[in-house]
């Protein structure tokens, strides 16, 4: 496939949030030296105005550039420029998604490039798991830098030796997010990006909106415990069918869509009553054994013989047994969904306390599948807490084939992770909402470009990482725990 060039796609806000706030003191006489100096375009003289203003503080790279000749503070003849930490930077984010991670994800979605500057874009601040180790980058020099573009990041999604073969050029696809949990423009943005990148996105459990049909070769559909919106034709449309047994953010608790968001349009898709809370039960009450599970898969294969089967499970202590069971039932893909993953609505108690984080589950399952001698016949994908390109690489080094991405795509669309998706009118930023006014805030074309750019930036980072560890193909990274080094969160 030919390379995908990112197209710059700026924020949809007038006053974007950054880490730094640039301000001009009363000494400023508006000479404009700073405008020419700043490489990021922070300062501006609007046409028709005499004065200079720091209109784009969010682009400021901070004190890092003070060493260079292009620093506004050193060039200013009267010392009139002040650079402070922006007050809202401290109000943004949390331990898992630090303000730095959110802002750099926005930057990547805007430019499609690896973030410059001194913001931490690789790890969060959770003090464990992915945030506690890194790659030991002592480049063995086996790959010449000029060939970095040739480093392969593709993975295969069917390794069973039968059925159709399916390859994606990047080792990830989009996670299930239902119509109801997110808006239709959000789904369309994701589907367009998936098509551009020749990868996939998933409908989640909430029916298959007709608007997605033009992208059907890149849309996975989910069969979850509530069977909301599952029909024969939706199954026949999808190249991959995903059985959702559980979701990492609420393992063992089924699915939740609170009444406020269940608008008539959502209810129609789900064949339910509008404005009632919809709870998918837990578990599939028709599946209590591997044999029952196989019956499920056979049922789908009868309707759509060509489909690949993915099984999404969360991470209890016996997840390794579950994975082996799924393999013998005929699954092509095991999707492990870790406890720290995203959700449109989940009880707070379930997000931290039930089931293990994905980092633990990957090594556990990978090693067990290797011992069982079936590792190379099944595709192991990790999700639930994968935030950055570095998280992707680490998941693969721990033993996954690839990953599934959810929250990061929403952050690319402007999510600040305020956590108000579950009720009322839903997302005030127009992403995870079903409100007919708020969902207009996202233009699918803009949204798609933001996600395409994020993917491009991630692919560049993966290639750089592979180059730095001396690998030509991401498939060679799987299980290479020897490349990892413990940092204890620095």
């Amino acid at each position, binding site marked *: 496939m030919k390379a995908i060039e990112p197209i710059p796609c700026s924020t949809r806000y007038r006053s974007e949030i950054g880490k730094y706030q640039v301000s001009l003191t009363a000494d400023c006489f508006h000479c404009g030296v700073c405008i020419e100096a700043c490489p990021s375009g922070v300062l501006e003289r609007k046409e028709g105005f005499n004065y200079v203003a720091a209109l784009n503080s969010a682009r400021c790279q901070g004190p890092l550039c003070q060493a260079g000749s292009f620093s506004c503070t050193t060039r200013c003849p009267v010392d009139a420029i002040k650079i402070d930490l922006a007050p809202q930077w401290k109000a943004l984010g949390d331990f898992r998604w630090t303000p730095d991670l959110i802002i750099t994800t926005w930057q990547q979605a805007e430019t499609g490039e690896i973030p410059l500057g001194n913001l931490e874009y690789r790890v969060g601040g959770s003090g464990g798991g992915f945030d506690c180790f890194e790659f030991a980058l002592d480049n063995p020099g086996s790959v010449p830098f000029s060939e970095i573009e040739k480093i392969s990041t593709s993975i295969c999604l069917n390794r069973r030796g039968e059925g159709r073969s399916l390859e994606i050029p990047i080792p990830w696809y989009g996670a299930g997010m239902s119509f109801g949990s997110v808006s239709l423009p959000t789904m369309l943005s994701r589907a367009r990006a998936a098509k551009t990148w020749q990868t996939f996105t998933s409908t989640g459990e909430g029916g298959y909106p007709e608007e997605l049909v033009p992208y059907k070769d890149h849309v996975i559909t989910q069969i979850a415990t509530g069977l909301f919106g599952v029909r024969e034709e939706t199954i026949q449309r999808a190249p991959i069918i995903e059985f959702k047994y559980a979701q990492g953010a609420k393992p063992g608790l089924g699915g939740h869509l609170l009444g406020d968001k269940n608008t008539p349009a959502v209810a129609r898709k789900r064949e339910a009553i509008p404005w009632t809370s919809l709870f998918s039960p837990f578990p599939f009450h028709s599946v209590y054994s591997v044999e029952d599970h196989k019956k499920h898969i056979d049922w789908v294969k009868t309707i759509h013989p060509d489909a690949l089967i993915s099984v999404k499970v969360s991470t209890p202590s016996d997840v390794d047994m*579950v994975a082996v069971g799924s393999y013998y039932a005929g699954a092509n893909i095991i999707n492990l969904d870790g406890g720290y993953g995203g959700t449109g609505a989940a009880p707070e108690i379930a997000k931290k306390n039930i089931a293990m984080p994905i980092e633990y589950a990957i090594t556990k399952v990978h090693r067990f599948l290797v011992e069982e001698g079936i590792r190379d016949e099944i595709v192991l994908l990790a999700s639930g807490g994968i935030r950055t390109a570095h998280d992707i690489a680490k998941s693969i080094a721990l033993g996954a084939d690839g990953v599934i991405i959810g929250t990061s795509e929403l952050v690319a669309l402007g999510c600040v992770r305020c956590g108000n998706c579950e009720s009322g009118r839903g997302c005030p930023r127009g992403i995870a909402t079903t409100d007919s006014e708020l969902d207009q805030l996202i233009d699918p074309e803009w949204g798609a470009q933001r996600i395409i750019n994020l993917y491009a930036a991630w692919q560049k980072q993966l290639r750089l990482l592979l180059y730095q560890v001396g690998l030509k193909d991401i498939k060679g990274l799987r299980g290479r725990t020897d490349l990892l080094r413990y940092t204890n969160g620095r």
Partner: protein
Amino acid sequence: MYERYRIETSPIKLASTQIGKFDIIRKDNCLNCGQCISHCIYDVHRRDEKDHRKMAEPVSHLCKNCFACVQNCPGQALEMVRNEEFESLGDAYWTPPIIHAIWKEAEEGKIPVYGAGYRGRFKGSGFDAIWTDMSEIVRPTRDGIHSREYIATAVDVGRKPSWIIDFENLDLPRFHEIQIPMLFEADPLGIRAKNIILAVVRAAHELGTLAYVDFENSFDELEPYIKSVVLRSPLDRIFQTDPALLRKASFVELTLPESHPADELEGVLTRLKSHNPALLVSLGLSSHLFTEELFRLVEESLVDVLNLSADHHGQCSGGEMFITDSTRKLHLNLVKRHIRDGITLLGKGGIAAAEHVPKLIICGTDAAVLDYSLMVALGCRMCEECRIKDCPAGLPGLDSEAAEQRIINLACAWRDQLLEILSAMGIRDVRRLRGEVGRAMFYEEIERESFGFIFEERYLFK
């Protein structure tokens, strides 16, 4: 007629708990254009009532951190900062989010549900180093929370004979069935406020559980609820209490002083039991150093309940051991001596969130005793100012009925969350959870199992 146990909640707000997490600041360069009004869906921004040309001060406590107003402001005139009052709540253990969660639970009586994934640290110490397990595919799970199936949360507090010795002379079990595995401490702050003590005791009565009250804090209004009260006294002062009250009591707890003569405890216990053979006696332990004497008293049926207390940060014996570790140790010790099933083990201290209850039960107790969390439900900020002057949240002046409803709401929210955990595990009875460490994952073990082969041990646990 058989009726399922259920808790009646009723939303109740307290003015003292309306503290937002963020402050929205409107700077002087605001143009009063009103863009923020249309972008805020939470009603933080309004026009000035008196002068519609101006914007009113933002109503910050309604803000939900979405940044829409800040980012859409054409003049960069709005700022969002962390609210210092919120940030200064509690301490390192009773963190602002923990206090805020209890306030919300006590206000609404519901399980807190939010969008977006987990936001906290990967792991912590104490309760935060434990994950509970769930069942996937192969074990039947339960759906208790939507009442499609029933999950029992009742436990027995007291003594059960392990086996029948003499059919002619049946030793009847002596226990008190409580409907939720949570007991209450009526005055953990030691402020002796009658309205609060009455509220806790009445809530315990209403919920079908028990509340601990010191003999010296007992008063006449508690009389109708005396069956729901555990009266407590230090060992050396039990017989100096009001004999009439002692006669009415069905359940007493003795707290042990630092040291006491070896035979004193046995003497007191024998005398108590000879006065009233039906009396349930609990021993309040504050150390994780368990003596042989203790186990002998349990074996001889002189003690029916062991209540292991930690401080408000969950630390036992002055910080040597976390409560979950001491209860695990005591539980296993009792199991090894074949006396675990005969008695009840309770744990108290540091229980600050709904998930702490099942985690403590997994670590060997039958039920948990809630102390400071009840006070936080009433608006307490864990500031310890009550030790020197008046309570800033006005606890002593709180309406007793409102306080009772707040506690009932909290208990309902926590019980429902316990049901969530149990249903995810596929357990239908909370009594089955006791000591089930197989249904939990402990940080050190799982870190070693998953990462031990990658990184050297000395890095992992430094």
